[in-house]
């Protein structure tokens, strides 16, 4: 080129240049051709696998089929939580164009009441794009078909056939089994499983449903279809069936659980029944409760209002989260401690209605006094002076050690979150907690289950079981038929027999709970009453008046007394005394031996109470609905908030209203209003004076 530029340009030079440059063009074409061929080879051969996979994932649309949840069974194989095939309709908020119009159409097609429509609208506004919102489930075919037909004008609405969780016993197993619900955004963040955002899929939110989530969940199935870019399904490529979750079998006796829950009636309380030989929990009822069926469907605003405003705290599992001063139910335990410490059971004390400790007078619940009291009488008459006297002699450590051995203040590995374990006070504990020396009156209070001592109902049931069988039973909820026999506590059998006899006397003899005698000829029940003060007698007398100031009623028992098999603990919050608790215990225990008799009693009660649990809840719901209509002021919380609020609602009130740190005055053991069928010693009038200096 350099040469050319110097020469005068000529036609020949231009032709030569044209030829060379045309060759360059040809080379350029060849180069591009090679480049394209190389690129083609790279895409089609080297990267083939990747793009083949991409093409497949374009072509094939995978729809998850939610797995059927594992069942929860009772010890006999009856369902506590099952699955029901149903038709349901969900909404994917992201795909809805006009929520108001869509909801109006759906409300018309499905006959949705106005409060339900408002609930769904609230959820639609709050939901993040991917979370399906349930419109209705358990639909009949006609309604389901009506929605399916109008789908083209209802974008984002998904009608489908699926399974929903069903709890046959309803509220009776609310706290026991828990409930399920749609996964929250947080849960999805944690576990990015596409299953969690599949419409209609629910995960365990509480109780066993939550604790055994992985076991109950199962493996989702999938439906593979070939679909166009716009989502039109071209053909079905096949379906993989889901693998249902594995069932769990509980030690619970479904009939007993249901009976116990119903028998609590209008009270706020809990019942725990255990097999005292194995530790199997046969019933664990906390009432009032919520209906897990409606929780699982997404709770409505009226029901939420009803539950959250109830002073009987239906959202709290009182068995595991309720803490109460155990009152006199600790006396058999204290007596056991005395026996093990070498006290002669015939050693007696004279009860004149009170005992001076230091410069304070501690009263017996019976201010007229019990006369000469030995250990047996101390138990069956629940004489406080007997225990005041010997507790001072033997010391708190003996009692605290025995309390812990028998399960009080102990943590049991139950599959529930947020249990409360209470307190067994002793000098070291008080120093740690309050930096104060242990005082004599602390011992005195503790021996009658007042003061710092706090227990939950399950611990009381364990205590009753261990006293009954002398075995170191642990509460067990999962059925294990091959479990090794429970080892002995190491108590002397004559000590156990002595306590058993004294406790039998409580029920079958001269004791404080004569009406608790089982209506069965050959089975005798042994028990111990307890009445725990909630507030000082200067506030209220504990028997009547404002509900929340009334005494808690306790009863622990086991049967048959001579060959203990079942143990039971009943607590009635603010029941006004043990008289509210032991009839329940009696009937629940009766159910184990003669279900027909027990049911007859319950039927009579339920007639007075206005129906069974379900009917009463329905009535209550109706009255709320009538009162607030579709405009319950407090909007129903969404799923995340619900879980949180349930948690808050469950937090136990900051201990019993006032911790009795000074001398407590034991409340009377037998209610005044009682009309005893058998003839125990005549009930006494409440003792009023304050034990404080």
């Amino acid at each position, binding site marked *: 080129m350099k040469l050319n530029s110097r020469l005068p*340009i000529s036609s020949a030079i231009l032709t030569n240049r044209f030829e060379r440059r*045309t060759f360059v063009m040809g080379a350029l074409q060849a180069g591009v051709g090679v480049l*394209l061929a190389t*690129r083609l080879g790279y895409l*089609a051969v080297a990267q*083939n696998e*990747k793009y083949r996979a991409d*093409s*497949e994932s374009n072509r094939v649309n995978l729809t998850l089929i939610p797995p059927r949840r594992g069942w929860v069974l009772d010890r006999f194989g009856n369902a506590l939580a099952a699955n029901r095939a149903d038709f349901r309709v969900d909404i994917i908020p992201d795909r809805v164009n006009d929520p108001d119009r869509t909801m109006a159409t759906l409300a018309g097609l499905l006959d949705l009441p106005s409060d339900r429509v408002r609930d769904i609208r609230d959820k639609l506004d709050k939901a993040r794009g991917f979370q399906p919102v349930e419109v209705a489930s358990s639909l009949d075919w006609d309604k389901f078909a009506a929605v399916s037909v109008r789908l083209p004008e209802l974008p984002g609405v998904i009608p489908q056939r699926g399974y929903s969780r069903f709890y046959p016993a309803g509220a009776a197993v609310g706290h026991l089994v828990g409930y399920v619900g749609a996964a929250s955004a947080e849960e999805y963040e944690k576990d990015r499983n596409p299953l969690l955002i599949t419409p209609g899929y629910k995960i365990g939110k509480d109780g066993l449903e939550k604790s055994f989530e992985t076991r109950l969940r199962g493996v989702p199935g999938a439906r593979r279809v070939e679909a166009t870019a716009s989502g039109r399904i071209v053909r079905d490529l096949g379906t993989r069936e889901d693998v249902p979750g594995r069932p769990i079998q509980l030690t619970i006796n479904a009939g007993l659980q249901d009976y116990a829950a119903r028998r609590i009636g209008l009270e706020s309380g809990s019942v725990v029944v255990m097999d005292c030989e194995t530790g199997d929990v046969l019933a664990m009822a906390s009432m009032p409760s919520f209906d897990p069926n409606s929780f699982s469907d997404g709770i409505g605003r009226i029901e939420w209002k009803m539950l959250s405003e109830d002073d009987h705290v239906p959202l709290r599992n009182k068995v595991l989260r309720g803490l109460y001063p155990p009152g006199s139910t600790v006396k058999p335990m204290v007596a056991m401690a005395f026996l093990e410490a070498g006290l002669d059971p015939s050693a007696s004390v004279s009860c004149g209605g009170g005992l001076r400790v230091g410069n304070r007078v501690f009263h017996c619940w019976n201010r007229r006094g019990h006369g000469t009291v030995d250990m047996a009488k101390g138990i069956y008459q629940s004489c406080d002076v007997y225990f005041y006297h010997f507790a001072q002699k033997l010391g708190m450590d003996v009692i605290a050690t025995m309390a812990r051995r028998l399960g009080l203040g102990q943590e049991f590995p139950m599959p529930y979150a947020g249990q409360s374990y209470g307190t067994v006070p002793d000098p070291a504990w008080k120093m740690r907690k309050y930096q104060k020396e242990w005082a004599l009156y602390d011992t005195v209070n503790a021996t009658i289950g007042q003061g710092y001592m706090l227990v939950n109902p399950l611990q009381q049931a364990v205590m009753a079981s261990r006293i009954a069988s002398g075995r170191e039973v642990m509460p067990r909820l999962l059925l294990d038929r091959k479990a090794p026999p429970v080892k002995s506590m190491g108590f002397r059998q004559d000590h156990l027999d002595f306590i058993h006899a004294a406790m039998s006397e409580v029920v079958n003899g001269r004791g404080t709970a004569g009406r608790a005698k089982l209506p069965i000829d050959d089975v005798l029940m042994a028990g111990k009453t307890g009445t725990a003060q909630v507030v000082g007698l200067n506030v209220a007398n504990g028997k009547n008046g404002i509900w929340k100031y009334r005494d808690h009623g306790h009863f622990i028992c086991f049967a048959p007394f001579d060959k203990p098999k079942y143990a039971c603990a009943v607590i009635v919050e603010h029941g006004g005394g043990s008289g509210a608790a032991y009839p329940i215990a009696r009937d629940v225990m009766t159910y184990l031996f003669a279900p027909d008799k027990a049911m007859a009693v319950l039927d009579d009660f339920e007639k007075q109470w206005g129906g069974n649990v379900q009917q009463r809840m329905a009535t209550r719901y109706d009255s709320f609905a009538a009162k607030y209509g579709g405009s319950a002021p407090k909007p129903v919380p969404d799923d995340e908030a619900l879980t949180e609020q349930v948690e808050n609602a469950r937090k136990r009130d900051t201990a019993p209203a006032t911790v009795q740190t000074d001398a407590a005055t034991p409340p009377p053991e037998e209610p005044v209003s009682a009309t005893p069928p058998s003839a125990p010693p005549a009930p006494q009038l409440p003792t009023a004076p304050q034990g404080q200096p």
Partner: protein
Amino acid sequence: MMPRAYVPAAIARQPWGVLVPLIALTGFGAAVLYSAAGGRFETWSMSHLVRFSIFLVMAMVIARLPQELFRKMAIPVYIVLCLLLVLVELIGGIGGGSQRWLNLGFMTLQPSELMKPGIVLVLAWFYSVLPVGETQNWRALAPAAGLLGIPAGLVMLQPDLGTGLSIAFGAVVIMFLAGLPLRWFLGAGAAMLVIAPLAFFTLLHGYQRNRVLVFLDPESDPLGTGYHITQSKIAIGSGGFLGKGFGDGSQSHLNYLPESHTDFVFATMAEEWGMVGGLFVLAVFGLIFRWGLKVALNAPDRFPRLLAAGMTMTIFFYMCINLMMVMGLAPVVGIPLPWVSHGGSSMMTNMICIGTIMAVERWNRVAPRSLS
């Protein structure tokens, strides 16, 4: 080209060296379109073949035209095309929004398409009349730049970047082959490297800039502009060496691949025919270009030489940009693949180019190249 004693002269005289590849390519294109239409012949394949037949006749007619007519018509054709471009611009201005075509009633005419061979024609004429001695100075450049600037500017205004670049490419090729000093091209190339980034941020429209950005990173916009490139690569890549089989391309049949019968027809083809099909298309284009450049080299004078080479390179530019686009080597620009994509305008343009080259080939036979 195929001198056979037993073949009639009229048939033997035909330029089979290009007709066979063309018919093969168009026929293959029709087959691909048949599959892309979901196995329906009438949808696209039929009109594809009918158009090819009509435009082939047109090309034959062009091939019969004398060189003198081409020389005479160069400037008038150029002026008419420029006026049409202005007209399109005016109509677009009145109608609001960009318009690229004129509705002639029986067909829509896209003047910018015709300008591709038009610019080659007028510049070939210009350099053929330019005195040999003037080719090394500014007088060789300024008029040509003017001739290029007007139509290219008008097309860019439409805005149609792809066609504008195509026209400019044709013009630059003519200048290069006309023997303008190499240092000009090297200098212009260097200047482009500087100006291109500036133009990218100032001259390009938002959507054009976006296309370039998405080309550089298709995954950045998987559902927007990048979707085209991504799906096209999936179609080609999933085809493998032998393809998924005729009629079994899921990408095109399930509508994941957009424009599966026009701009992205190569992806549709490669999915079903695999790399083998792609190499076949490349090879056929190679034959056509070799024929075109051979005709150019055989031409006796500057005008037919530049004309044939320019027309060849115009077709090459089509193919090159289209294939680079569908394989993710170039941004998405609306340029179809000659003789395979379904579409009338590009078919016409390409057949005009072919017809012109065929004309040059005929002139070569009439007046064989002298040894100069």
